[in-house]
């Protein structure tokens, strides 16, 4: 007897592979301010909700929608340094895609291949940020609905409101879950209208129960320290017009870049499989795909949710196509049938002990790869070197040698790093776009793009120091305008006002 069934073996192997893909050096530009906010919450015992990090919004109260994730991140850093954060990301990726695997049809090998593609699509958003919790919870919601649809046991739906009560404290991405539920219900309704005498879909009563649990979930989102304000936060964030100019992940995908192309393959795979299979895709899968495809093409931060929602449909359709093709090939070509039969025989004849040993060795090997990668990417000297390549570590050291105080205009992507490493110097801007809003972000862009009034903007905020990339247009113009270089290295330049 094999100690692990074939299906489980594939699942374990694929998930170990995904873990190795997801474990990375934690260097996201937003991670730093989340860590700092989490540390502040842990230190004081009160949720960090009034800004003290910036010069532009200091004292302003702020809806810190990710407070619980921040606490978790700060705790992980405290107990396990960067390694713990890396593992956290890896585990979240594994859990989210593991839940997707459970919703797939077809041969485990096909499911594994689709899951790897989904992992490649999602990998764009795998980083140590609260956002990754939304990926896990979306996968959990979709798995619950899938299980309910298959088993019709109401107990599954009890989880939905509870998930949203937690989600409202972890990340504002709870809205993705609500949209998924809405799309699921629309899909079931579509089937009810279009497919007469349909026995497979949910009954009206069952659709009503899903709608009720959705409503409860929506209500329970307010079970958080900010109450009703949590409902507003996704709209506040999306309403910021400058978002896509400033943050890559809010921009539309650029398929000229290879790392963004897997979603294109997935979309084409879906179109191809739907076209060839001739098998109708059920509404509960079709409608969420339409919404999340739209979301992913508008903003690349939605690649992950698209992958989670689409992978089961892709596996279902591919399984149908391949099943038909293989059956036809086996009946039409005796040689192919012989190959299949001989493969089946050799599988049965294979010594079970040897097979068990090989399976165990394979699992251990992939586990070892995951462990080695985790250790390697978090080597202190490598982390330190990478940090200096991406962030203005040298400029931070320069500030620490100074006694006087400065009001700094900083590069947006460095704001979080400065908050974490240089809390004594407040930043002009960082990744908390919902805190800054269009007014400050537009001022930031006016300066960075060297618009006519860039110096007036700096005067408006009484800023006397610029911390910029050394090769930026702004730094060259500022030097020409008489700003003095007080520090310069390979990455950054510090300029003091004339």
């Amino acid at each position, binding site marked *: 007897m094999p100690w692990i069934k074939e299906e489980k073996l594939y699942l374990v192997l694929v998930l170990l592979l995904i873990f190795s893909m997801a474990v990375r050096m934690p260097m996201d530009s937003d991670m730093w301010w989340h860590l700092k906010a989490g540390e502040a919450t842990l230190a004081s015992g009160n949720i960090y909700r009034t800004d003290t990090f910036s010069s532009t919004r200091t004292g302003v109260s702020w809806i810190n929608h990710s407070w619980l994730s921040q606490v978790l991140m700060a705790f992980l850093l405290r107990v396990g340094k960067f390694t713990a954060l890396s593992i956290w990301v890896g585990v979240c990726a594994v859990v989210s895609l593991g839940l997707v695997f459970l919703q797939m049809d077809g041969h485990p090998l096909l499911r594994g291949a689709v899951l790897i593609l989904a992992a490649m699509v999602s990998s764009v958003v795998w980083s140590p940020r609260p956002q990754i919790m939304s990926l896990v919870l979306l996968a959990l919601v979709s798995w619950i609905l899938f299980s309910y649809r298959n088993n019709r046991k109401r107990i599954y739906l009890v989880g939905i409101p509870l998930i949203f009560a937690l989600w409202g404290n972890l990340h504002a991405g709870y809205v993705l879950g609500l949209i998924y539920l809405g799309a699921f219900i629309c899909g079931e309704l579509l089937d009810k209208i*279009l497919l*007469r005498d349909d026995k497979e879909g949910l009954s009206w009563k069952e659709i009503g129960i899903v709608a009720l649990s959705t409503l409860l979930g929506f209500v329970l989102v307010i079970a958080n320290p900010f109450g009703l304000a949590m409902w507003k936060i996704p709209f506040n964030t999306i309403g910021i017009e400058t978002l*896509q100019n400033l943050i890559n992940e809010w*921009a*539309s*995908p*650029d*398929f*000229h870049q290879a790392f963004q192309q897997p979603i*294109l393959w997935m*979309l*084409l795979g*879906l*179109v*191809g499989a*739907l*076209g*060839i*299979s*001739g*098998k*109708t*895709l059920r509404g509960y899968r*079709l409608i969420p*795909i*339409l919404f999340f*495809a*739209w979301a992913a*093409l*508008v*903003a690349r931060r939605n690649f992950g949710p698209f992958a989670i929602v689409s992978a089961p449909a892709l596996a279902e359709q591919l399984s149908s196509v391949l099943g038909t093709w293989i059956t036809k090939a086996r009946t039409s070509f005796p040689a192919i049938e012989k190959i299949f039969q001989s493969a089946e025989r050799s599988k049965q004849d294979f010594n079970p002990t040897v097979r068990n040993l090989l399976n165990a060795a394979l699992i251990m090997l992939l586990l070892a790869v995951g462990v080695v990668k985790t250790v390697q990417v978090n080597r202190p000297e490598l982390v330190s070197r990478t940090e200096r390549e991406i962030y203005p570590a040298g400029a931070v050291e320069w500030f620490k040698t100074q006694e006087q105080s400065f009001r700094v205009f900083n590069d947006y992507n460095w704001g979080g790093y400065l908050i974490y490493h240089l809390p004594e110097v407040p930043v002009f801007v960082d990744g908390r776009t919902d805190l800054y809003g269009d007014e400050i972000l537009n001022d930031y862009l006016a300066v960075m*793009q*060297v*618009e*006519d009034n860039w110096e007036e903007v700096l005067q408006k905020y009484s800023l006397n120091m610029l911390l910029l990339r050394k*090769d930026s*247009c*702004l730094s*060259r*113009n500022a030097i*020409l*305008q008489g700003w003095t270089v007080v520090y310069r290295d390979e990455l950054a330049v510090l300029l003091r006002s004339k």
Partner: protein
Amino acid sequence: MNTKKIARKIAKFVLPRLGEVFFAAIFAAAIGLGPQMMNVDGDLGRHITLGSYIIETGEIPTNDIFSFSKLGDPLTPHEWLADVVLSLAHRVAGLDGVIWLTALVLALSFWLIYKHSLNLSNMSVLALMGGIIGAAAGSMHWLTRPHIFTILLTALWSMELEKVRIGLKKGWVIFPVMMFAWANLHGAFIVGLVIWAAVFLGELLEKQKNWNQLRVLIWIGPSSILASLLNPDGLGIWKTGMSFLGNQYLVSHTAEYLPPDFQNPAFWPFLAVIGLSVLILGMNQRRMNFSHLFLLGSWTAMALYSARNIPLYVAVSIPILCDQTAKIIKEGRGDGVVDWLLNFQDRISNTEKDIRGGMIGLVTVILSISLLMSGVRLDFQNQGNVFSEDVFPVKAADWLEVNQPQGNGFNHFSWGGYLLYRLWPEQLVFIDGQTDFYGEELTRQYEQVITLQPGWKQTFLKHEIRWAILPANSPAAEFLSESGKWEMSYSDQTAKILILIEEE
């Protein structure tokens, strides 16, 4: 009785068919968008100037005559015929003529898409809806440039190829003839061969093969490839196209090759077509034929990769989607709504049988050019078909015409074509929109200057730049004007002209 007969005969010609209404609507929309079509893209000036040169000299230049940076270098004139056509329209009716021609080509293209959709679906209402959504999706690339001929030929080529595929057409000679025209009109003639490859491969994979059709399809490919070589540069046209597409830097730095930005509402209709594709395929209970599948898949990918492919995607995919939708609708026979829809379609088809049409389209086309030539503005914003002073350095070019600064002038990339239109042959440009000719090295040098990267001074020295015309709010213009070594000789809200007074 006679009067009735005469009235019926007149009505037969005067009453329009759905396709004709669609043609007239697209034509009117394109005329209305005239200023927008010519001001979004910077190359029109170059096309008109090159076309004029060919008409006047009777010679197609195969060496550069427009820039001082690459003067005399070998050049592939892959759009020479389109440039001649655009220039002729310009000679007849100025920029109004160019807009009229563009509108006519676009209206014909979308009428062909409608016609192809109708052929496949046999439902004119569906074909009309497909045409409308296709026009909305493709309109983001309605521009006065040779690309419009590729849209037209893609629509025509797809329709004719489909006729071959389903056995309605037995001959293949029309295809090399089309390809001969295409290869001389626009560099994207390869599109036709991509479509042919998808159809041919698809038919090869089908279980039930019609060998007669396959034989015709086999002839189309090689004969069209040979026909594409009948151009002033022969095989060079292939080399230029391939080397440009293979250069990641140039492709990523050419605005029209960039992927669609779905944050921009102009791309939402295209997004809707993609959504509709998934929806329609998801609801379909029958397998698509492989040719259609390959066409839909490959063009979805190409349109997502480069926005300029969206109108071509529309030309190829809308008829296929109409076909699939018609199948879904017809399978729903028996349902109240579906039956009503099919009855409605039948009534329209019966009415259209008695209509010959043609009058409305003809009148629209003739009337519009007459009105435009008599000075009536037909664009939606009533600003006339002129180069916009907010987009192009119109007044700065006036200044240059009068003052004629000495030496080589560095120019903003997207103004190159306009400066040629206004100032050539007295002034040559540093660069213009023909990136496949200027190549990576010069484009990088341009980028170096415009973003003030280290080395920009060397670029100026190398090309002996004595003056520069730059966007008014560009950091480079600001930098040069503050440097003390350049004198601001002209400035308005769009452009600044700076002249070197002290060597860098």
